[in-house]
């Protein structure tokens, strides 16, 4: 009895309120949308296909520029995509073909071997980083590692052009310098993104596998010898 009184006391004044019928009660019951992105996503069905493709291409190109000038920005991490890594991996594997592999089996890497090394290597490094307690997600890490292969792909293209001129010691020296520089660039770019996600006492443990990964890819690029 006393409890019921206690409960009704804050609402005691409401019993006097009455709503007359000639005051219209109207309004808009809608939850305000946080961002306008959701509107965009709902309306992408209506836009032309060219627009959709161009949006993805612009995102990929944007990330390429981020790799070229590695700053500590989180754009690469926030909107990850795997188109860029796929494109780079296929390009690198195609450029590594046409070597002296046609004679016998002791030749250069096959297309499938390059593919497996790049993707399997990236997955193992990502697992290693996550097992060591990293805060980066699985696909974000794959995205970063894949995009940072770009300097080595550029170096491969340069090497093939240099090899057209000849394959003597001079061309080897030029190729060595180009591959070393791009290997350093790749490692530096990827550690700029990845090392931040680890505590300070484990950074070297995460950076070393990345170093080994790009070293092996650099080795494949450097030892490419054309068919004679």
């Amino acid at each position, binding site marked *: 009895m006393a409890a019921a009184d206690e409960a009704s006391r804050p609402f005691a004044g409401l019993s006097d309120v009455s709503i007359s019928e000639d005051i219209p009660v109207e309004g808009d019951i809608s939850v305000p949308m946080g961002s306008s992105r959701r509107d965009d996503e709902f309306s992408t069905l209506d836009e032309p296909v060219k627009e959709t493709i161009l949006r993805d291409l612009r995102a990929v190109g944007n990330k390429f520029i981020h790799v070229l000038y590695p700053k500590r920005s989180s754009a690469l991490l926030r909107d990850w995509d795997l188109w860029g890594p796929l494109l780079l991996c296929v390009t690198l594997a195609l450029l590594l073909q046409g*070597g*002296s592999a046609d*004679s016998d*089996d*002791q*030749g*250069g*890497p096959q297309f499938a*071997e390059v593919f497996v090394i790049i993707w399997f290597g990236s997955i193992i490094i990502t697992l*290693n980083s*996550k*097992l*060591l*307690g990293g805060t980066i997600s699985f696909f974000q890490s794959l995205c970063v590692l894949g995009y940072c292969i770009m300097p080595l792909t550029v170096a491969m293209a340069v090497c093939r052009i240099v090899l057209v001129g000849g394959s003597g010691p001079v061309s080897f020296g030029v190729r060595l310098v180009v591959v070393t520089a791009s290997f350093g660039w790749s490692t530096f770019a990827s550690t700029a993104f990845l090392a931040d996600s680890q505590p300070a*006492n*484990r*950074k*070297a*443990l995460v950076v*070393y*596998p990345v170093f*080994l990964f790009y*070293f*092996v890819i650099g*080795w*494949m690029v450097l*030892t*490419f*010898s054309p068919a*004679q």
Partner: protein
Amino acid sequence: MASANDPFQFQEFEEAASLLEADRDATTITIDDEDTKAEKQRIAAGFIPDGDDEDRLASDDKTELLSGQKKSAPFWTFEYYQQFFDIETHHVRERIIGSMVPWPRKNFIHVYLRRNPDLYGPFWICTTLVFAIAISGNISTFLGKLGKPNYKYTPEFGKVTIAATAIFSYAWLVPLALWGFLLWRNNKAMNLVTYSFMEIICVYGYSLAIYIPAVVLWILPYEWLRWCSIMVALCLSGSVLVMTFWPAVRDDHPKMIIATMSAIVVLNTLLAVGCKVYFFSKPETLIPVEHAPAAEVIKTTHAAATHST
């Protein structure tokens, strides 16, 4: 239990156990300071400290023990494997150095692993060794055949697969066999020292670390250098392994001890020599002995040509 003295005088209370004896229904709380608590936990876990070795890493130990027991998650979850990566950079560095420098009193497992075996070291050392062997073998073949006119350089990528198979099976199957063997012997002869499977894998993985600089040295085409470096690497890694497993078998039958130790050493030797023979060709002599027959032929044809004109 307060005594009927001056109430403002601080009273020393006895240990919880003796208080409980007096009054079984009372609840007692014992608040130790950090040092004694760590000491008690350490002794309770069966870990007998051996003096001055521990002081250097004592603070490390304390923080590990105080942070709680290891959570044991089921083996199909991610967290189960995360417990084997619970190490820091300086731990890995210390373990690698400890595997290269065998010290008579220091057992690798007791001193460096301290019940925290990791999978990071063994896995990445094996991977590095695989690529080091493949790349060094390639370079040494290239350098050895540099003078020959017919030589066409091939990267030889098939050898990476073979190297990987050999090294990873050594690093994972031999510890499995050794662990099973030690388990079987423990049932027959009661040993005080038992090693878990992860600890044995850890020792074997880290003992391969000395081979990485040795393999890089094999690039140089000097046969005496290669044999010297193999001997040194074999001695160091073999002695670390022998000293680690000595406490586990010393209470056993003497024949078993000899058999186990020699099996460990022989397998290690087989791996090292096998890798050298398969991946690194013998450097051939590059002196003009090879060009001599060709030079002779050229001279005679030239002489015949000048004579005939």
